[in-house]
């Protein structure tokens, strides 16, 4: 059965943190510790994200795409996953990585230009390598989900992508494939309103959540800055995927508060006021107010959460700052599972040249 939703987004919390849907609020399977953990994860994400931008400004990272403003979308959805579920990120999912316990130092090596992918152990941590070609990871998620279904595993895949990604052929082919095969997968679109300089209105003429109609599975639009609403729809989608093999397309409406990446100059294409207007919808502040009103923000917790966030940001800085490149020769070992002759020759040359260089340097 195809479930359709009204065109307005699912919301539990108003921008000021008050509960607009108390039935939904109370029906959530989240205890106080969960709420605090989510808040903490949002804080850590915010701090690490800001630290990464700072690290880039200081030349420690080559480039960094901030997720500022998208914390609720990422933490809410990631929190809805089980350990067995597999995350397929794009390049902006530090918040998801935080929830999944991914080593953020190794992650930042991607942005430093010292490794590709950024994820030390994708299969073990059930978190795929960072995927840069827009939308391409959608197909990997569908394939993994099909594999899980064939193994009758009680697990699903979730794939993250942006509003711009929905224009790509791979998005379509993946959704269609998942619909036909009943793959346990959640298509999680962070509609942050922009694909670099292109606003979503120039990206597509239909609401993103509605695209699910084309594939015979449910689509839902959610307030992406409302962490509880995101959690709720994600949780439902995960259950539908695992239990019924029904995919869901979630459109989390949010906003990219920062530039596309540290290399971008957003003033060229959007007005300061547009960004400012979204300041009111800050997802952290909204959630903080809820927690406050629910009496969960005792000073001890707040201090601890902030200290944790600062500590993690500091750990990332310490781990990445001045980190030396990994020698090129090592990369040769992972082009193939073996070392064919033609490559061995080249590797030898690299070893020879770099050792000469070191020799000279010494």
């Amino acid at each position, binding site marked *: 059965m195809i479930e359709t939703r009204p065109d307005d987004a699912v919301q539990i919390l108003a921008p000021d943190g008050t509960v607009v849907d108390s039935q939904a609020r109370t029906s959530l399977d989240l205890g106080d510790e969960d709420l605090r953990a989510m808040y903490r994860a949002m804080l850590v994400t915010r701090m690490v994200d800001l630290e990464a931008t700072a690290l880039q400004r200081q030349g420690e990272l080559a480039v960094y795409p901030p997720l500022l403003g998208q914390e609720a979308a990422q933490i809410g959805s990631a929190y809805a996953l089980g350990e067995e579920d597999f995350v397929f990120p794009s390049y902006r999912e530090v918040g998801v990585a935080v929830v999944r316990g991914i080593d953020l130092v190794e992650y930042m090596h991607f942005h430093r230009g010292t490794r590709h992918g950024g994820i030390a152990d*994708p299969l073990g941590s059930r978190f795929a*390598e960072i995927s840069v070609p827009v939308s391409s990871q959608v197909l990997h998620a569908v394939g993994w989900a099909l594999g899980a279904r064939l193994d009758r595993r009680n697990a699903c895949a979730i794939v993250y992508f942006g509003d711009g990604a929905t224009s790509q052929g791979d998005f379509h082919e993946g959704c269609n494939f998942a619909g036909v095969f009943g793959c346990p997968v959640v298509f999680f679109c962070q509609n942050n309103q922009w694909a670099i300089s292109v606003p979503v209105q120039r990206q597509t003429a239909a609401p993103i959540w509605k695209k699910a109609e084309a594939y015979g599975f449910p689509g839902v639009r959610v307030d992406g800055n409302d962490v509880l609403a995101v959690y709720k729809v994600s949780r439902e989608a995960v259950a539908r995927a695992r239990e019924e093999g029904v995919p869901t397309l979630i459109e989390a409406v949010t906003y990219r508060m920062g530039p596309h990446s540290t290399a971008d100059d957003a003033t060229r294409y959007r007005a300061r006021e547009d960004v400012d207007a979204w300041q009111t919808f800050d997802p952290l502040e909204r959630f903080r107010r809820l927690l406050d009103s629910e009496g969960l923000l005792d000073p001890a917790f707040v201090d601890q959460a902030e200290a944790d966030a600062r500590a993690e940001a500091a750990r990332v800085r310490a781990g990445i700052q001045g980190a030396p490149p990994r020698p090129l020769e090592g990369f040769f070992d*992972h082009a193939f*599972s073996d070392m064919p*002759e033609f490559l061995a020759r080249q590797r030898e040359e690299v070893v020879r040249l770099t050792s000469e260089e070191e020799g000279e340097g010494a």
Partner: protein
Amino acid sequence: MPEVTMVQALNEGLRFAMQEDDRVLVLGEDVGKLGGVFRVTDRIQADFGEERVFDTPLAESAIAGVSLGLAMAGWRPVAEMQFDAFSYPALDQVISHIAKYRFRSVGTVDPSLVIRIPCGGGIGAAEHHSESPEVYYAHTSGLKVAIPSTPLDAFNLLVRSIRDPDPVIFFEPKSRYWSKESGDLSPDGLPFGAARTVREGNHATLVAWGGMVARCLQAAEAAAEDGVELEVVDLRTLVPLDLEGLANAAKKTGRVVVVHEAPMTAGFGAEVVARIVEDAFEYLEAPVLRVTGYDIPYPPAKVEEHYLPSVDRILIALERVLSF
């Protein structure tokens, strides 16, 4: 000794691999009930079930990308592209992900999958059904590229490809699909990276792969009538390339002609020339020449015989090489 066609050998190869490893899957367009447009997967779905052998929607990028996802879930997909030119929509997934996933993941993920691509011309097919796109793949670091020229080696190479932890682009020369060979089907033939001397000769060497190996053998027979003894080398895998075998073949005769169906410009023949020049220059008595498809899009079938390297064209190049 039983006689098999290449199509049958490939079918048996798939069955062999599926029997020895129950993680092997077969997917693609029309590979199920139809058994593939060339019947390479004939009755495999009936025998191995719809979970392990399935038709996909008509979307090659999905076939490739989903295969990678399946590999990440521990399966070993063998995907079929229906024809050479229909592998192009999947190039992005192949180049940007399948070829790079091991590298990107610092060796923690095996993108172990095979993409089968019927290739080449000579069968009177319509536009887009006769191309030889091996260079697109051979130039892409991280892929292995196999292309058998005989039924027995097709079986051997296919089973090896499926067992390989690396992604393998497996080309099947359509013009040889119905060629026959007798002998036992076994995966214990030559490994990847080993060229095969299919004919011994002292006067000059022909280097080829896939469909052109048979053509070179024809040329060698024609030459033999004039007392010219040609060595014919089948590369079998373009990546890894048998550098030593190639150099030795060149050194033996000092005169080499490379033959392939793809257009000349930046075809894989150029790589063969470059390797020979690098590794056997002092032994060369003549320029290494190429006899190839011309640098125009593959023409309509009715003139393909003039487009593809013919025995005549090979002999003309040989004349130049021998008279140098």
